[in-house]
């Protein structure tokens, strides 16, 4: 990610971000880290948030964590960054090792680990916020020199051991991640990463470049938690995924092979394939004759990318920004989900100006050896979990294209839907389905009745508790599996059930899936001994489509309200004995794992 100057970031962060939703960040630390504030604000603004960053008492991390002395930790905290510099936490380990005895160092390490555990447990007790635990940096100039790496009780090996233990501890907590600062140090390099003057004068250890790298790394995590990571990579061809120009050099004449520069392009393609394999959609946007590009894909043996990887093609002489809009529409994704890579600076600029929501990476012309790193380091596609469905995504999108092509122009809707031979499975959430279910709550904006966002931990909690349940609907049709496409979250109190969340992927809008799920939801409520079910509809800019959902399914409107944020909310209820079950609707088969249901209804 390209960052502007420090002064510019500070200016931009305070100016533009007034209308954006807030992001509350608490920083627990034992050193001066305040200069990172404008960089955090800039990074937040880039993903659409106004960051409110507060620093805990200097070297009071444990008191902040356990006692919440500055009241930084609470239900509306979004992220807690814990930054403990080992130099300030243990002098024994970091500067006095030559005179220290091995047993003393071991005790010190225990003390440090115990302190850190106290901090993370304390934080978790006060808030469910994302925790980003900054690791200790390995010393670049250890006192013991070349002996440091060889001796067990040296500063170097103590840091390695502590980081290993801390990774384990952090991992055992929900929504907590260890951030490897050694990576940041390696990328920036020691002299630019630290600022020894400010460290000695003010106990502010980091230089500008160090803080920028740390902030960018933190925000890769935050972007994913907030669902702001990107989902589609669009690439140019000539000069981007191969060298040369296919129209002039022919499909075998482009630079792609085991010499230079072919080797660099092969490696770049492998990086793209790797992204594809974890669920990133890849599309092609190239100014060429279709046949020429197809030739390379089909005949050049050095191609790592195949037609199986590409979900959308725009190979024509049309302007690239229009192509991107068409790709977005075809894949049914937002422009803000896309990253465009092109080695031509004019094309890059044009797209940047025409479509500011698209992230554009202008690959340095003639330097293909840099391409792979630029893609791997950009952070736009970084995720913290990959579900089984993510891995199948390219295949699913290709099946979707097949569905679209198969849809005849003037067929009666009912006949068309029945011809899809849809099979749905409705069940209570189990461990395997948790990631996808949580992901759906994070991403679904259109068919979403209350737009409540849940993490994997939240879904597990809701599913484990007696007073709540999470249901999902999994769909397939004759073209292939669509995966988990709808989710409902129910809560129970006595004889009343409440539909806390009801959402459905926009991919399956118009198939009557929502009617099937609400029917199974009602079945579940009856099973739980409820007589009434209530529900809410909270209107947003994007969910117009759900306006009439509950009324059209027999729910009565109880009251309407407008919240302080200007959101319209409607509250509904329905007496269960009066509910008309639609059963399987247009489905060929419904497999319901809700007890009491008749299996294989038709």
């Amino acid at each position, binding site marked *: 990610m390209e960052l502007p*100057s*420090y*002064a*510019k970031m*500070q*200016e931009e962060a*305070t100016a533009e971000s007034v209308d954006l939703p807030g992001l509350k960040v608490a920083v627990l630390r034992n050193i*001066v880290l*305040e*200069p990172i504030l*404008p960089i955090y604000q800039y990074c937040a603004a880039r993903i659409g948030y106004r960051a409110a960053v507060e620093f805990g008492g200097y070297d009071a991390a444990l008191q902040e964590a356990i006692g919440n002395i500055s009241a930084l930790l609470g239900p509306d905290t979004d992220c807690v960054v814990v930054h403990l510099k080992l130099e300030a936490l243990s002098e024994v380990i970091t500067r006095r090792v030559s005179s220290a005895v091995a047993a003393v160092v071991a005790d010190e390490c225990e003390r440090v680990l115990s302190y850190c555990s106290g901090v993370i447990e304390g934080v978790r007790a006060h808030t469910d916020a994302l925790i980003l635990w900054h690791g200790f940096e390995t010393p670049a100039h250890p006192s013991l020199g070349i002996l440091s790496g060889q001796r067990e009780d040296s500063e170097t090996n103590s840091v390695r051991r502590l980081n290993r233990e801390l990774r384990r501890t952090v991992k055992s907590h929900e929504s907590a991640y260890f951030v490897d600062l050694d990576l940041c140090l390696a990328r920036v390099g020691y002299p630019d990463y630290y600022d020894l*003057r*400010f460290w000695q004068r*003010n106990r*502010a250890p980091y*230089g*500008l470049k160090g803080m920028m790298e740390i902030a960018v790394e933190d925000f890769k995590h935050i972007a994913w938690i907030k669902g702001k990571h990107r989902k589609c990579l669009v690439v140019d061809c000539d000069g981007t995924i191969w060298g040369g120009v296919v129209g002039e050099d022919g499909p075998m004449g482009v630079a792609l092979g085991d010499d230079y520069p072919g080797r660099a392009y092969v490696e770049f393609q492998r990086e793209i394939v790797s992204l594809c394999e974890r669920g990133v959609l890849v599309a092609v946007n190239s100014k060429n004759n279709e046949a020429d590009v197809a030739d390379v894909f089909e005949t050049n043996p050095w191609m790592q990318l195949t037609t199986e990887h590409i979900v959308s093609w725009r190979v024509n002489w049309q302007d690239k920004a229009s192509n991107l809009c068409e790709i977005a529409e075809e894949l049914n994704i937002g422009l803000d989900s896309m990253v465009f890579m092109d080695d031509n600076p004019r094309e890059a600029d044009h797209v940047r100006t025409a479509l500011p929501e698209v992230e554009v990476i202008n690959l340095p012309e003639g330097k293909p050896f840099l391409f792979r790193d630029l893609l791997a380091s950009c952070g736009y596609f970084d995720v913290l979990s990959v579900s089984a469905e993510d891995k199948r995504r390219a295949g699913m999108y290709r099946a979707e294209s097949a569905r679209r092509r198969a849809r005849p122009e003037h067929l009666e809707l009912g006949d068309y839907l029945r011809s899809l031979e849809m099979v749905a499975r409705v069940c209570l959430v189990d461990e395997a389905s948790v990631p996808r279910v949580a992901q759906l709550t994070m991403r679904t904006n259109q068919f979403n009745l209350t737009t409540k966002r849940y993490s994997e931990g939240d879904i597990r909690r809701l599913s484990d508790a007696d007073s709540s349940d999470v249901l999902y609907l999994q769909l397939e049709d004759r073209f292939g599996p669509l995966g988990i496409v709808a989710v409902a979250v129910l809560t129970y109190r006595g004889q009343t059930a409440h539909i806390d969340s009801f959402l459905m992927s926009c991919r399956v809008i118009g198939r009557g899936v929502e009617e099937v799920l609400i029917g199974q939801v009602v079945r579940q409520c009856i099973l739980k001994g409820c007589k009434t079910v209530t529900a809410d509809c909270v209107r947003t800019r994007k969910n117009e489509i759900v306006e009439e959902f509950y009324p059209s399914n027999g729910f009565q409107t109880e009251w309407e309200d407008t919240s302080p944020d200007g959101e319209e909310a409607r509250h509904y209820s329905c007496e269960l004995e009066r509910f008309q079950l639609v059963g399987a609707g247009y489905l060929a088969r419904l497999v319901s794992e809700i007890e009491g249901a008749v299996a294989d209804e038709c």
Partner: protein
Amino acid sequence: MSVERRVIRVASQILGGSEADLTVSDSPETVSEWDSLRHMNLILGLEEEFGVTFSDTEMLELVDIQSIVDVTSQKCGE
């Protein structure tokens, strides 16, 4: 752009407020946002803008906008 204009631009971006409001006679005494933390940010921003690194002695001299302009001009060989 002159060193003075560039210093004032960076300072206004970091201390907040517009370039027009800052003059060479401004200092932590006259600008309420200019506390010790902002001062550190200011130095980071100036070093980035001019591609210089202030020595310990030079940092002690950076007491107001005028002195910043003087020290920076000297470092940039003007």
